[in-house]
């Protein structure tokens, strides 16, 4: 009966009285890729922790059958020995060690006396890299020399080196560029052909659809459905994930784009470690009142560097001017920027967004705490009133404003960070990857909020790696490639292909569509 490599039957995992998983069944055949879909907090990560014995056998109910035998692993090393390897969303590489050393971490090849057998490890690492179609990688260099995409490949090489028979990929593409994702998906197809099974967890449903044979959807800890991908499409996956029809992923809030109010002039950023290298090369652009400007480009193109320089948060040396209302403004530190009416929701929520030891409410009021103070003392009532208002406005789901912010889901944490910045009443709002690691429902609410802000006259700059999102919500799209401005498009009939073509173009020319001559002071166009 069992042509399944892995069967998880009736998995129940409780924390205190709360059932995080409530009877989940997952089956995986050898050489099959199963897409595991669900909103944030649906229980995907918990399920994978059960499978990889982060939660050892006995702390949950149900059974795992691996290769026809019940698996009762007590630790990750046991599951890895069995051939189950998990690649976490956050990479677990040691940046200062070489690629080869990372691949053999914990399984080092040794010579007598415990000395490292570098020649053998480098030889094997090079073979693995050839297998992964990156033969030009120098495996003796430190991992930190390589970008996010290559690092992800090193993680996969590390897993393959452990003779993985089941590879669990948890949001593997969140830091990858489009082309790197293609490489990754090709590799997964290769692995499938060699009989390696995969569980692919991702919010990016187009990737799931492209590579998975079967889709299992879980919601609120319950198994909703397992269907062959051939019988599914992306809208039906979304319907199963949210439990309701999601007719439009990108709500359009009617808003009018006004005159030019904000301008970035000749922004150039130099690399932190190598001050001669330009990460952003002389970029200028304008932004109109009530406009949503999407900034697209491949990861590493310099988008985050550009916007953090505008906000005064770029760690290295940079030059350039920022103008608001026809006057240059001082944005050399985040504090000065916020005072001038410019604020930013940063890319990395955990490292740059939330204050883990403060409550939800205290996180929200952090940036404007002064306004509640009477002679140094915080007026607790006024503060709480403001917090309640923001929680209601953002539809932030929390049992109480006093809960630790770390107890919220990613989407709700993001709403809290957004609320914190909105309380400063910005005229220009920079959002860097505002929906990264955010579930479908919260994404929808964030888009809606962006529309409402634009309608009230706030100008928004949104950096995003998801092209569909950029095209879905922007009025205008800037394309950045290798630190240069490669395209400036009015978003009317704009296609993903056009944007990608601009991002990949080699010359220093800036592509335009229609008769888009956005010079400073150009007359604005109205959209609805």
């Amino acid at each position, binding site marked *: 009966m069992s042509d399944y490599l892995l069967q998880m039957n009736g998995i129940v995992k409780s924390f205190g009285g709360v059932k995080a998983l409530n009877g989940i069944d997952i089956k995986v055949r050898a050489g099959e890729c199963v897409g595991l879909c669900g909103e944030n907090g649906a229980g995907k990560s918990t399920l994978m922790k059960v499978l990889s014995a982060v939660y050892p056998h006995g702390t949950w109910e149900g059974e795992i059958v691996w290769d026809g035998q019940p698996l009762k692993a007590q630790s990750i090393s046991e599951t890895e020995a069995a051939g189950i390897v998990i690649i976490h969303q956050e990479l677990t590489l040691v940046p200062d060690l070489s690629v080869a050393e990372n691949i053999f971490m914990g399984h080092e090849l040794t010579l007598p006396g415990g000395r490292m057998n570098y020649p053998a490890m480098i030889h094997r690492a090079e073979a693995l890299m050839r297998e992964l179609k990156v033969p030009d990688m120098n495996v003796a260099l430190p991992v930190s020399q390589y970008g996010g995409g290559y690092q992800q490949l090193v993680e996969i090489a590390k897993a393959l080196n452990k003779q993985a028979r089941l590879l669990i990929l948890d949001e593997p593409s969140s830091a990858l560029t489009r082309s790197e994702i293609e490489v990754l998906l090709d590799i997964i197809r290769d692995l499938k052909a060699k009989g390696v099974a995969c569980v692919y967890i991702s919010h990016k449903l187009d990737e799931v659809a492209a590579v998975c044979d079967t889709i299992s959807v879980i919601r609120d800890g319950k198994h909703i459905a397992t269907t062959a991908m051939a019988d599914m499409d992306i809208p039906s996956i979304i319907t199963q994930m949210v439990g309701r029809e999601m007719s439009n992923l990108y709500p359009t809030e009617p808003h009018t784009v006004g005159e030019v109010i904000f301008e970035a002039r000749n922004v150039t950023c130099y690399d932190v470690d190598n001050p001669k290298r330009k990460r952003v090369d002389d970029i200028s652009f304008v932004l109109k009142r009530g406009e949503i400007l999407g900034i697209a480009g491949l990861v590493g193109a310099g988008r985050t560097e550009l916007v953090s320089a505008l906000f005064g948060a770029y760690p290295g040396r940079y030059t350039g001017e920022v103008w608001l209302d026809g006057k240059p403004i001082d944005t050399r530190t985040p504090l000065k920027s*916020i005072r001038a009416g410019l604020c930013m929701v940063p890319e990395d929520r955990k490292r740059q967004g939330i*204050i883990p030891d403060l409550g939800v409410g205290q996180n929200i009021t952090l940036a404007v705490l002064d306004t509640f103070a009477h002679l140094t003392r915080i007026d607790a009532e006024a503060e709480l009133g403001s917090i309640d208002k923001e929680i209601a406005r953002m539809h932030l789901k929390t049992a109480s404003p006093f809960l630790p912010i770390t107890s919220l889901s990613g989407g709700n944490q993001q709403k809290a960070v957004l609320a914190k910045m909105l309380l400063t009443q910005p005229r220009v709002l920079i959002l860097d990857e505002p929906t990264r690691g955010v579930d479908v429902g919260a994404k929808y609410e964030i888009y809606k909020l962006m529309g409402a802000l634009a309608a009230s006259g706030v100008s928004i700059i949104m950096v995003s790696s998801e092209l569909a999102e950029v095209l879905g919500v922007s009025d205008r799209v800037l394309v950045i490639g290798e630190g240069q401005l490669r395209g400036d498009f009015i978003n009317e009939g704009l296609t993903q292909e056009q944007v990608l073509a601009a991002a990949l173009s080699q010359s220093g020319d800036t592509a335009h569509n229609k008769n888009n001559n956005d010079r400073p002071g150009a007359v604005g166009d109205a959209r609805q």
Partner: protein
Amino acid sequence: MNQLKQLFTRYKMLALVIAIAVIWLFFSWETDGGFLTPRNLSNLLRQMSITGILACGMVLVIISGEIDLSVGSLLGLLGGVAAILDVVYHLPLPLNLCIVAGCGLLIGLANGCMTAYLRIPSFIVGLGGMLAFRGILLGITGGTTIAPVSPELVYIGQGYLPPLVGVVLGVLLFALTLFLTWRQRSNRALHGLAAHSLVRDVVRVAAIGAVLAGFVYTLNSYDGIPVPVLLLLVLLGVFSYITSQTVFGRRIYSVGSNMEATRLSGINVQAVKLWIFGIMGVMCALAGLVNTARLAAGSPSAGNMGELDAIAACFIGGTSMRGGSGTVYGALLGALVITSLDNGMSMLDVDSYWQMIVKGSILVLAVWVDVSTRAGRR
């Protein structure tokens, strides 16, 4: 067992109070009650005041994610300066106080400047200061004890409040407790939050009242409330207010919890750190004054290892090692633990090498208990 663990997780300070009670009972039994006499308790609190004053400042430094190793030496230096100004230059006490506190503030700000603006790790700044300040002290005193200091200065360290003042103070504090409890209840009602049960609040107020009454009665049945203990009580109030009610206080926690996110929220994190170190410097000045007054002399070895006692007090009192959480009253309870051990073991004539072993072990044990009851944290 599990329930007990949960109880301690929620009321961490309860565990600390129980630990203090156990320590006191043990010493009391070993000394045939000598430990718990009013005279010894009065001594104990006076002894504790120096570590306590330092711990008040240190807890802010540690919450903000830094450390200051120089406070023991700085205490000695500023205490020495106070003694010299008093003994050699006969400066009037108020002027002396101002100069010493001003020096403390400036040196603290210099430490803060090096840490926050020049980005030298505070551990190194503290280590350097620890050596340098001690060196300056040895230089200006010539390695000798500066004595005798004037009676006015001695009063700061050895004086007592008249019993009546003590009683009035106790009554006022009790009235303040009543008022704060009442305001908290009405505030919670105003925001539709479930008020704490009346029984809970009554028990709490009664407990605070009993502790206050016991405190005043015990001290009054010796010589009255010692002046340094009064100073410590005032600092407890001021620092609790700063950490829980003010913008600056909130920012201390926020900087320690996630400095990058705080900076990106438009907060001048460098200025926050600068002022924390400035406050630490003033606390060193106060501790130095009290220490000189208590010994009635400026000694070149004053405050030796004081930084370690203050840091240990913070950690025993539940301050997080990676910054972001901790309380002032916790740190003072920690200081009480340390001082009780010192005092009790001295009464028992325990060899000083044993005292060091015991204190070290208690520090490690306390932090282990803290770490293992910290539910759901990394």
